[in-house]
């Protein structure tokens, strides 16, 4: 066996170009497969870590998925708000460590405007323990200050000090002119660093800012001419916050979470609901997870193509190697050894391909991890192969060995037909 292994190795080395090309093609497809696996894990992780350290998300009673979508992903809208009173009640609850209130419903050129407080900048965590940082400026100090998510700043090319106008409603694109809060422009006071979460795609103002732009509105309609309140007459102290849309909540102890969730869900004063983000995120992932399956199917075909390439290269080499086989026969190698030789060759090719693939994907992930995180908001972990990764490696190796039996069978037939006569 050792003899055959060294023969197989030397024979492969002899056809260095074909061998390296075959190994490279298997390696590339292996790297692609492992890369997709890493991206899958990364996507799932990034997704699950869109927010962290938040124990409960609380909003008006409705669908739990809906609450998650508008509170975390800024998708869809709340059907109902909750009163500021109720928010205060829970905020001051003894089991609660901190809260982050969100007031939603306005937008700026397709990006959502979120009313919140200083707590947002202090307490929000994502990817386990990362916190918000400022690229420039600082959190809003006045009613008409606005902080931009990094995507917003990049897409609209805003800088500190720019004046912007927010619009009522969250319709995509430019707001309807009538709905513009054009009389109350905001000044960019800060720009956040990229977080690779939905935080990047929103603008942040104070809760009082939301109240301020709506102060002269009645029943969701713009003020009648002559009834407008000019921005100059608005001071933060005079702004009363009536309601918010939802809030994030952190308990002092993890054990308190379930107890508190039950309390909120059965709160008599107002119909509210509290959800555990991790559980709902998982639910959501299951529904959008089919995309990763599609990706996986594609890579499996890529692997098949790589293995077929190996089959072709081994098979076509056989005609040039008929003489070699006849020599081996003459010096006492039986058909079994001829078959073993070729199976070993394809096994070695597959093994080398797997090694190249693993090295390649780790090199690439290591080199491009920061870029991928920056550009796509995807944190791809550099770690030893996942169980699924090992399964792929094992499967490809096994497939490589099995595929070797095809040229091996052909070689066996050749040696039977050729015997010791040599065809060049």
């Amino acid at each position, binding site marked *: 066996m050792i003899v055959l292994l060294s023969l197989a190795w*030397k024979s492969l080395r002899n056809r260095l170009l074909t061998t390296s090309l075959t190994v490279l093609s298997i390696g590339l497809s292996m790297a692609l497969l492992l890369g997709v696996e890493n991206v899958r894990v990364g996507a799932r992780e990034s997704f699950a870590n869109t927010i962290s350290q938040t124990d409960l998300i609380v909003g008006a009673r409705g669908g739990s998925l809906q609450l998650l979508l508008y509170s975390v992903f800024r998708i869809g809208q709340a059907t109902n708000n909750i009163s500021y009173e109720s928010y205060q009640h829970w905020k001051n609850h003894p089991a609660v460590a901190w809260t982050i209130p969100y007031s939603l419903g306005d937008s700026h050129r397709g990006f959502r405007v979120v009313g919140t407080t200083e707590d947002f900048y202090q307490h929000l965590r994502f990817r386990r323990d990362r916190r918000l940082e400022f690229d420039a400026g600082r959190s809003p100090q006045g009613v008409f200050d606005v902080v931009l998510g990094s995507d917003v700043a990049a897409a609209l090319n805003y800088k500190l000090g720019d004046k912007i106008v927010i619009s009522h409603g969250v319709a995509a694109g430019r707001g309807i002119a009538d709905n513009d809060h054009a009389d109350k422009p905001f000044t960019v006071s800060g720009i956040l660093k990229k977080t690779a979460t939905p935080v990047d795609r929103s603008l942040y103002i104070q809760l009082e800012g939301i109240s301020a732009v709506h102060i002269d509105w009645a029943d969701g309609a713009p003020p009648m001419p002559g009834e407008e309140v000019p921005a100059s007459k608005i001071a933060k102290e005079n702004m009363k916050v009536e309601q918010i849309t939802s809030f994030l909540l952190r308990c002092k102890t993890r054990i308190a979470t379930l107890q508190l969730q039950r309390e909120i869900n059965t709160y008599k004063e107002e119909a509210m609901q509290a959800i555990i983000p991790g559980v709902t995120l998982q639910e959501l992932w299951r529904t959008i997870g089919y995309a990763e399956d599609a990706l996986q199917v594609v890579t499996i075909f890529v692997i098949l193509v790589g293995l077929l390439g190996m089959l072709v290269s081994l098979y076509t080499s056989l005609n040039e190697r008929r003489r070699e086989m006849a020599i081996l026969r003459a*010096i006492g190698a*039986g058909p079994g050894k001829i078959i073993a030789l070729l199976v070993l060759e394809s096994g070695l090719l597959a093994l080398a391909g797997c090694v190249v693939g693993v090295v390649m994907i780790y090199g690439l992930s290591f080199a491009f991890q920061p870029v991928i995180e920056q550009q796509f908001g995807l944190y791809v972990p550099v770690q030893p192969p996942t169980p699924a990764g090992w399964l792929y490696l094992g499967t490809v190796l096994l497939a490589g060995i099995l595929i070797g039996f095809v040229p091996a069978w052909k070689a066996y037939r050749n040696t039977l037909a050729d015997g010791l006569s040599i065809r060049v």
Partner: protein
Amino acid sequence: MSAPAVLLRDVRFRYRSGPEILDIPELTIVRGERVFLFGPSGSGKTTLLGLLAGVLAGYTGSVEVLGQDMAKLRGSARDAFRGTHIGYIFQQFNLIPYLTVRENITLPGRLQPARGKQAGDVTAVAQRLGIASLLERGVTELSVGQQQRVAAARALLGGPELLIADEPTSALDFDHRERFLELLFENCALTNSTLLFVSHDRSLAGKFDRQLSLVDFNRAQRQEPAA
């Protein structure tokens, strides 16, 4: 040691549905004999060697090599028998291109442990054949004459009882041919190997103990001349 090196009786052979290639009533080669076998192309020389080496099966009659009835050996046992007891030299391109000279020479011993046990000193064989300085070279760097000597060294290492050479000199020029033959004789004498030397070039025939014309003892060829 009394059994002849080769003993054929009433051997007939054809490839599948093809015409009869061999019909040999009797052929005996005694041990230690140096036999020159000649015949035109297509007279069945290579087929006969295939039978003796145990690569071709499906004949009728009896083929005994070194006292072993080849029909009684199956599959891998036949391969092992060939690898252990028979040295084989082809016309040319005898060597595995991706191995060194030394690796080529020692390969039979490594493939068949029994042959490996009897394998003697590689350097000694190489010295006798004048290729000792080439042992670590790649075989593709060698001239045709050197390649044939390497092939001879491989066939002779371990002292096989029967050495079959299938037109080993046809790619060599006259001087090299003479020298190669001398080396072959010397080494066969040393290991007491029987030599079956096949060629269509009868100018070498005089140096052998016995000359055999395949056309004379193969009845198949007399009725049906080669196409």
